[in-house]
């Protein structure tokens, strides 16, 4: 496929929507910095550009190649995580960053995409074969739990949960029976106390404080209290661009990353949030339609799972900012400041588009 047919084939309008959401993020970062391009907005623009390039690159790679190499990429990512775990410096109690001298990245964010890709390949490859439990559930569960455990060890509970539930979505889409989910759900509930003991103290306290948000508003619940004030004070139409008091006077912590949504809510109000949701919804519906148009099972299952993961991130982020789920540290897709997550989503959408661009390719014979 030459470059011209790619330019012709590629869904530019869809990419435009992605850039639109990212630009909104840039605008918010510009506002948070008090109307300055530094320190965040400019960096974010560079990342978006890199992301779009990578998206085009990923989209121009034949889906066959993605299919063939997904296991290798998976192990490469696991390798990166291990390096990160053992060799990188601790930043505020967690080892998430891999320093590659000219830039640093969070392998866990990249892994998010490729775990789905790997599971998609796995289910694609077994779909012609037996339905026995070992192949159907245990192996893919192993594929899923290895990275989840490693990411959880970093510790990065938010990303680990996102990866885990994205994987579960793949299971669901691949046709694992409902009763299995039911059983696993019950088992999971029963084993809650055991899992609890694996949590770090700060994670436990976050969950405890989540259950009692009125207490300790200056300490453990400070984040969420201030975030709710931001959102609530924004009202229906917001205080206006660059007018957010909560964010400009730095009452909301982490507002350029995990809490960027509260800045949106404060400056543009419920109306702005609704607009963002509509764009998100269009992206997701469109993406699912694109997936379903593909002729191969691999592309479909990857695409829909990826979109579900995308949705899950949005839900967890917004849920945490609005105080309906505990603070677990998940960025708002395409908006929050952060290169790894941004680039990984663009790559994910790139693979999704690749599945569409090469939708007629059959993967059975590989």
């Amino acid at each position, binding site marked *: 496929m030459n470059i011209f047919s790619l330019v012709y084939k590629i869904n530019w309008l869809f990419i435009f929507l992605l850039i639109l959401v990212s630009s909104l993020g840039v605008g918010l970062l510009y506002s948070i910095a008090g109307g300055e391009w530094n320190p965040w907005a400019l960096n974010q623009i560079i990342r978006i550009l890199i992301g779009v390039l990578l998206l085009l690159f990923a989209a121009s790679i034949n889906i066959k190649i993605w299919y063939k190499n997904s296991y290798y990429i998976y192990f490469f990512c696991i390798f990166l995580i291990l390096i990160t775990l053992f060799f990188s410096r601790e930043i505020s109690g967690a080892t998430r960053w891999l320093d590659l001298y000219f830039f640093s990245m969070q392998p866990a964010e990249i892994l998010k995409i490729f775990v789905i890709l790997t599971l998609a390949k796995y289910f694609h490859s077994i*779909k*012609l074969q037996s339905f026995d439990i070992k192949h159907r559930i245990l192996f893919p569960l192993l594929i899923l739990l290895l990275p989840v455990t490693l990411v959880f060890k970093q510790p990065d509970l938010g990303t680990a949960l996102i990866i885990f539930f994205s994987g579960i*979505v793949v299971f*669901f*889409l691949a*046709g694992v029976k409902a009763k299995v989910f039911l059983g696993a759900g019950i088992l999971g509930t029963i084993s809650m106390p055991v899992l609890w003991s694996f949590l770090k103290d700060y994670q436990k306290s976050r969950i405890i404080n989540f259950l009692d948000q009125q207490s300790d508003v200056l300490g453990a619940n400070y984040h969420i209290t*201030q975030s*709710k*004030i*931001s*959102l*609530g*004070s*924004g*009202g*229906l139409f917001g205080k206006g661009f660059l007018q957010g*008091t*909560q964010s*400009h*006077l*730095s*009452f909301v912590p982490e507002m350029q990353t995990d809490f960027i949504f509260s800045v949106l*809510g*404060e400056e543009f*109000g*419920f109306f702005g*949030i*609704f607009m963002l*949701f509509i764009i998100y919804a269009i992206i997701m519906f469109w993406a*699912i339609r694109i997936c*379903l148009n593909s*002729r191969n*099972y691999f592309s*479909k*299952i990857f695409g*829909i799972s990826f979109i*579900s993961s995308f*949705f899950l991130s949005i*839900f967890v982020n*917004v*849920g945490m900012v*609005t*105080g*309906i789920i505990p603070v677990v540290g998940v960025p708002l897709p395409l908006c929050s400041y952060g290169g790894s997550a941004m680039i990984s989503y663009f790559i994910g959408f790139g693979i999704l588009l690749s599945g569409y661009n090469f939708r007629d390719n059959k993967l059975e014979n590989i």
Partner: protein
Amino acid sequence: MYKYPNLDKLLLRRTFLLGVGKGILLTGVLGRLIYLQIVKSNQYKLLANKNRISLRLLNPIRGKISDRNGKLLAINQNTFRVLCVVDNKIELKKALFNLSKFIFLNNIETQKIVNDFEKKNKNMPYLIKENLKWNEVSSISANSFLIPTIIIESGLQRKYPFKQTSAHTIGYLGPPTNNEIKKEPILGLMNINVGRFGMEEHLEKRLRGIPGTRHLEVNAHGRIVREIRKENSKKGNNVKLSIDIELQKKLYSLLKDKSGSIVAINVNNGEVIGMVSSPSFDPNFFNQGFSTEDWKTLINDPLAPLVNKSISGEYSPGSTFKTIVLLSALKNNIIKKNSSILCTSKLETKDRSFYCWCHKKKTGCYAARNHQRNVRPKLAIAQSCDCFFYELAKKIGINKIAETAKTFGIGKKTGIDIRGEKTGLVPTKSWKRKNIGKSWHVGETMITGVGQGYITSTPLQLALVTALIANNGKKIFPKINLDDFNLEKNVINDDMDEHHSDYEEYFPIIREGMYDAVNKHIGTAYKSRLSKPIFAGKTGTVQVRVITEEERETEIIPNRELPFEQRDHALFIGFAPYKNPKVAISVIIEHGGSGSSQAAPIAAKIFKKII
């Protein structure tokens, strides 16, 4: 195409199910957002404003206090203090080092500043030095670019240029107590001092003014971002007092190294033109913050420098009270102007003997070698004959004396507009029964007749009595705040002179007696007489100890040989000029000795100064 085409159908169905699930979650999130942003929005808007807007009060400028001639007694002086904006000790030390190039910082102080750094209020500038001198200020500001962490703040500080001279009358400022803050919460926010004494306390409301406000936008760290709105503070009212600071200076110098009080009052309108209590204190100290040791010495000083003796000191009036007793007798027709009483220098009753002040074992009453003579009222006042008043008091009876004393304002507050006024005490039979639980003795009436025993009064009351005698009973109220024209407010004294008219015809007798006391050679204050102005007065000497019979047998120990606290109090009341009186005064020197030798000369100097 696929071996299991239903797999696609399954995928589609599950995708749809997943979509439904997502829809439910999204609805939940949207519901939450509607709740936060629409339903509860107003509440959160309020919280957001509460977060960002910080109300700071602008302290009002306190009103000035001046004397009757407009000389300023309490002013606000600009002060400068140097502060430092640093986050840790290392920066602080660096700043101090740099600062020490420009102003003198002593080592011990510097050490203390560094040590106290932990206690500092976060996000607030840290105070290094107060009360900078002008050259220090200019040296810092000229080099401010070299010491960016150092800032200079200007403020106002109360100054009392005349220091001790009128400390009791003017008062001083001090930080509000917790109780006051509870009563007036705004005090806790303002960081100002409140009046603690004298006029500063009494006129606190009027002097203080109304604070302004600054609505400031602050960030999460409490730093000021900008000013949203400002309402200027309202200056406190200036106050003009009736006292004359030049006279005050003179009065204070007359009481130097003595303990006592002088009150000078205008007999025509009750204005207090001089009021001094000694020893005094420097009210400027209280502003500058002085050590606990200084405070302890002030508080524990037996001469009570912190008490305004002019209004809070309750003294036996001594012989000065004889004027009242005589007025009472004349009014109640016990004695006539020209009738006389036969006096001996020693009066025996069944339980004890009463001696005249002039009693000497061998000679008896100095004026009459035969130990007895007839004394008329005028002479009794002039010569202060004790026996005359023993007899007279016995005849009048305590209740009638008390009635007259009360009519002239003794035993109740005069209503002067300074706080801390005491009432003094006028004993009666029922009072004694109630408070001491014993019945009244006639001896006590006699003692009261010479102004000793239970009866006490304040120097101000005595000055007021004198003024009433001098102005022939014209109703006046002592006042010190010239701006306060609202005389009807004076409730306490409304009934004070209802019966003054009853005494009107007898005032001249008293005045003549007082004239003789000063200007006739038999008078007790003859040595202090002045040719100009001619003044009249009455001395008083109050015993603070009991003179035993044995002592009288041998020789009475003179005051100067007694320990200080056993010496007599010296009193003098008087008015001048004798014709057309203008000023009435009362002088009390605690343990000063006799009224004629100690208090009267002071009174003479005062009259010389005033008239």
